[in-house]
């Protein structure tokens, strides 16, 4: 029985990962309604939280299993599962991940239980609904990260919005209605753009293949053609790229489309902030890396320098704004806007190192900002406020809190041996290849940007304890320490030994760049400069040219 069971699980691992949280949510909901109908009353709140926690941990365990099964040698998408959904629309229930998706999947599945626990105090009254919303959000985020069909992706993209808005609107803090309505408006506009892209691509595949197909990977070799085989002229690419990018740019978020984020973070409960900083932003990155870049290569290449510039400007702009924020959540929100700009800079370099760096950067900076939001949440529980001015000298009453805050800040600053360094290093190396002038500004912006983090750290933790209310603050308890430790471990692990992650992300990036080259319709593209005429010169300990064979290991 079991021998047949394990292969079945392994075969459908991605569906299981995506479905587990929401299935648990529905099971819990049904149970609650049944109990109420029978007249047995509500379950104790601990039971709700405990079951949900177990569900999220199981999901994480499943992603770890997926990571073990993942073959780092293979290029392209893995773990493909596809079942027809609405054939006429080209929509399939299709899951698959590459190395990038795997990393994001792991990080989102890992922070979800932490987000659940971290905000357990904020929702004591209405546990069932609250747990339902969190689990549904996790499923939606995981689904978007793991889906390999455009329409399916858009479905999860939109589905994630509902629990998110519910969570913020029902359990959020001050200004939640305004924040929620803003988020909804911008996301709705973005969604319209995405649906437009899906519609046009549906028409195009229908016209070119005779069958509608929005799948990235063909389900069976030679039978169905994939979305990546559709030919798009340059002007079509431009239109679609712009329509598609609006949603991505609002969600990542790239200044000046970030206006919803500070308000959202200020109003959001801790757990939601954590998920917005990690999974929510990562779905946008997936949209870019899995769909936008390979689908519209010529437009992306042409827009590359402008996007890089935009990234740097966004980084500088958000960092300067963070410098003058007086409220902690808004400050960290602007910090994350800045790092999103830096990630965009990395992605727009369009080379291996830059893209790899951007992925790592999203991963580690996401975790570090999540850690900061968690710590701020804990401070807010204790003091009832998140104004910077209300704190000072906290290292005395709360040394452990100061310790973790320091680790997160140092990782964001890109100190070696912490995760942030690896991403920053790769982005900068990549940018030197294709955006040399801008990279100098990137370097300066990156290093100087950190000064506001230092300022806030000093303001919160150092100096004398001025406020009497701060004197008796209790340090992080055991559960809170465990949450922060769980966020710190991957940051430190990636900093000390980044190669396992790099070895999984790089093939995905190579495949992505290969698809971009293959799909490009502007053939007069200049050849990569390094390879042209330097063969005659001596090379010192040069690594043998990469063993990239087009299509190697592809399914």
């Amino acid at each position: 029985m079991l021998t047949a069971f394990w292969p079945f699980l392994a075969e459908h691992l991605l569906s299981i990962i995506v479905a587990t949280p929401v299935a648990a949510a529905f099971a819990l909901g049904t149970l609650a309604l049944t109990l109420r109908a029978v007249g047995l009353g509500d379950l104790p709140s601990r039971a709700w939280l405990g079951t949900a926690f177990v569900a999220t941990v199981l999901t994480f365990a499943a992603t770890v299993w997926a990571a073990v099964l993942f073959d780092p040698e293979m290029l392209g998408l893995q773990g493909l599962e596809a079942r027809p959904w609405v054939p006429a629309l080209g929509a399939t229930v299709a899951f698959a991940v590459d190395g990038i998706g795997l990393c994001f999947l792991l990080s989102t599945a890992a922070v979800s239980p932490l987000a659940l626990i971290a905000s357990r105090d904020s929702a004591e009254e209405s546990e069932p609904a609250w747990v339902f919303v969190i689990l549904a959000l996790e499923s939606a985020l995981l689904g978007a990260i793991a889906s390999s069909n455009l329409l399916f992706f858009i479905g999860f993209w939109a589905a994630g919005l509902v629990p998110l808005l519910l969570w913020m609107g029902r359990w959020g803090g001050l200004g939640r209605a305004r924040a929620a309505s803003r988020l909804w408006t911008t996301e709705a506009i973005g969604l319209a753009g995405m649906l437009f892209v899906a519609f046009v691509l549906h028409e195009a595949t229908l016209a070119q293949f005779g069958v509608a197909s929005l799948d990235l990977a063909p389900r069976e070799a030679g039978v169905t053609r994939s979305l990546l085989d559709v030919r798009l002229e340059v002007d079509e690419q431009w239109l679609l790229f712009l329509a598609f990018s609006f949603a991505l740019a609002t969600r990542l978020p790239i200044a000046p489309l970030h206006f919803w984020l500070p308000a959202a973070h200020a109003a959001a409960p801790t757990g939601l902030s954590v998920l917005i900083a990690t999974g929510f932003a990562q779905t946008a990155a997936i949209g870019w890396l899995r769909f936008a870049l390979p689908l519209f290569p010529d437009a992306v290449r042409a827009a590359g320098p402008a996007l890089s510039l935009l990234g740097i400007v966004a980084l500088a702009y958000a960092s300067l704004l963070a410098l003058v924020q007086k409220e902690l959540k808004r400050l960290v929100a602007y910090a994350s806007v800045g790092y999103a700009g830096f990630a965009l800079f990395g992605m727009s370099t369009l080379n291996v190192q830059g893209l790899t760096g951007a992925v790592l950067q999203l991963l580690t900076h996401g975790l570090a900002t999540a850690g900061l939001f968690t710590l701020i949440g804990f401070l807010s529980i204790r003091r009832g406020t998140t104004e910077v001015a209300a704190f000072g000298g906290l290292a005395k009453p709360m040394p452990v809190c100061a310790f973790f805050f320091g680790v997160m800040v140092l990782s964001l600053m890109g100190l070696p041996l912490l995760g942030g360094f690896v991403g920053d290093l790769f982005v900068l190396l990549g940018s030197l290849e294709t955006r040399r002038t801008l990279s100098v500004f990137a370097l300066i912006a990156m290093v100087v940007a950190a000064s506001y983090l230092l300022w806030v750290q000093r303001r919160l933790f150092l100096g004398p304890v001025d406020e009497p209310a701060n004197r008796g603050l209790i340090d992080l308890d055991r559960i809170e320490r465990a949450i922060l430790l769980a966020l710190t471990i991957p940051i430190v692990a990636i900093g000390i030994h980044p190669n396992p992650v790099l070895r999984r992300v790089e093939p995905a990036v190579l495949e992505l760049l290969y698809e971009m080259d293959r799909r490009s319709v502007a053939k007069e593209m200049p050849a990569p400069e390094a390879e042209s005429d330097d063969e005659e010169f001596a090379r010192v300990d040069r690594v043998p040219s990469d063993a990239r064979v087009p299509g190697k290991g592809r399914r």
Partner: protein
Amino acid sequence: MDDLTTTGALFAGSMIRWIALLPLVAAFVHGVLIGLVRARISDRLVFGISAAAVFAALCLSMGGLYEIVGVGAAERLLDSVGPWIGGGVGPRSFSAELAFQLDPLSAVFCLAVTGTALIVYVHAIGGFVHGALDRETAHRTFAMLDLLVGSTLVLVLADNLLLFFLGWAGVGIASQLFAAFDFEDRDASRAGATTFVIGRVGDLGLLAAMLLLFDGLSRAGAPALTFRGIEAAFRLLEGQGVLWLSYGLAQAPLLLEIVGFGLVLAALTKCAQLPLHFWLPQSTTGPTTAHALLQSVTTGVAGVYVLLRFAFLLESAPGALRTLILAGAATAMLASLAAANQLNLPRLIAFTTSTVLGFAILGIGIGAHSTAAFLILTHSVSKALLLLVAGVVISAQKGDTDLRRMGGLGRRMPGTHWLFLIAGLGLVGAFPFANFFPIEELVAFLWISARPESGLLLAVVVTSVGVLAFAMGRAFFLIFWGNVRPGGLLESPLRDPVGWQQNSLTILAVLAFSGGFLSPAQFWQGVTAAPIEQMDTVGYFLTRVVPGSPDPELVGSERGWLAALVGLVVVLGLAVSAARYARRGYRGEPKHPAVAVATVWMREMFFFERAYQILLVRPVRLLSELALARGIENQLIDRMVVSGGSGLLRGAVWGVLRRVQNGRAQSYTLIGLLTLLVIVTWMVA
């Protein structure tokens, strides 16, 4: 160019990693215990862990040095632990290993770092045991000391640039932690922030240099990250005349200048040189024990080491070298003046550090590489001694650091009095104390230098030496001679340190006296022009790695006159200070207003920090606050685009709906039909 991987039975190549890793592991253990577990372990265990780690590192360094001295010219010991970071494709791929190398340069610095560290550790343990230091802070102090020592050793032993940067950043963090050691104090926390921000500027320089160098080399088809690889690639490309080819020939010198300038910026920040010097005097709010390590063998070593490692590259970057010379000379002059006018003992010592490191920086600028390394070594012992004795003095004054309230300690604490004297003489380079020999070498190098400005530089160095001697003499007489000042708080009973504290100071005093004899042969050879066989002195040892001659080619009476000049200037400075302060102690601020203003300006080293605050920090904050936060973010994006835009949108939608939802059946039917038409068209098409 072979790497020695296996050598004698006593010392295996794979032991090198432990020189750096043992203190780092100790720091990690302490860090986890303090920050995470909040476990209190007994002080004895803390001392045991840290001292054992450093002692083991010292023994291993000695073993390594012994191996290195025995082997041939260009060899080194390499210890590769495994891959650390790697990635990329084709010519841009790189792989940075966790690998440590021990060559003459790193071996000498390793020994200096671990040796000084062990003595400082012993002194600190003595201080904690005898109650001179607060036991509550023992664990924290040793955690940070371990981090500082471990990071410095990683930096010195690193085989590639990324690992080097790791050590560099670690030193920066440790400096910040020490500056903000009394974190409950507002000034200390500010000093910590200043230290860190200045450190980041240095990091920026180093990162830029690293990345641009790698980029340039990989564009030329020779990517390398290891120091050896970079040098080999550099030489090869230079020899073929295709250096930085893909940058275009016109840009090649520019690239080298930028890389050189990045390195120089990094070194200037770590060595507390103009215009980024002010973090060091500010950070003296930290414990003097820590500064005994920080100012003697860590920050200075870090800054000078990076320049020595890249000496081959800096030779092709004349602009960067000129910056180096200018900064070194200006710092030596201004910092010695600042030291001469200080009223606060730790700040005074910090300015003397800047002065001496200025000499070293200047030496590297004019190509006297091994002289600079020699100066760093001799300086480290006298500075460590000076700071430890200063710590004794300060605790005798119940933590008061103000020179105006000190005086007459000599009679009560004779031992401390003599130790301070030895440290001071060693620092200012009184003949025949440690610093005399490298400073004399530097002056001789300047004398024979063909640079047009070398005369001026020589004058600057000699004057700074005199002012430095005056400053140290002034501090000495103010503290130990004269009478006990009325406002001074004195610990009672007042006595010299005892036990291990005393022993550690004595060892350092012996070294501060005799450190210069590491290269006496060079000196005598120079002065007497007698043909002495080339001896294996530090200078000659280092030339296996560092370019340039170890000794100025100046022999005979000229050299003798120069040496006499240096010696005389020192005596003169001391004599002036004795005449002014030996009897009467501190005499109040100068009366004449112009002199008073000049004194304050010199004391604050011309208010560089305030200038940065006014010219840079405030405008940026103001710009962010007014233009960005209020202007663009609030008014433009929030009000006009988002609220205004959504207002317009809402208006439009409502307008359409109002028109459509008018309650008339005809219009509903029309809408329904139109919708149906659209759907049918789409499905048919």
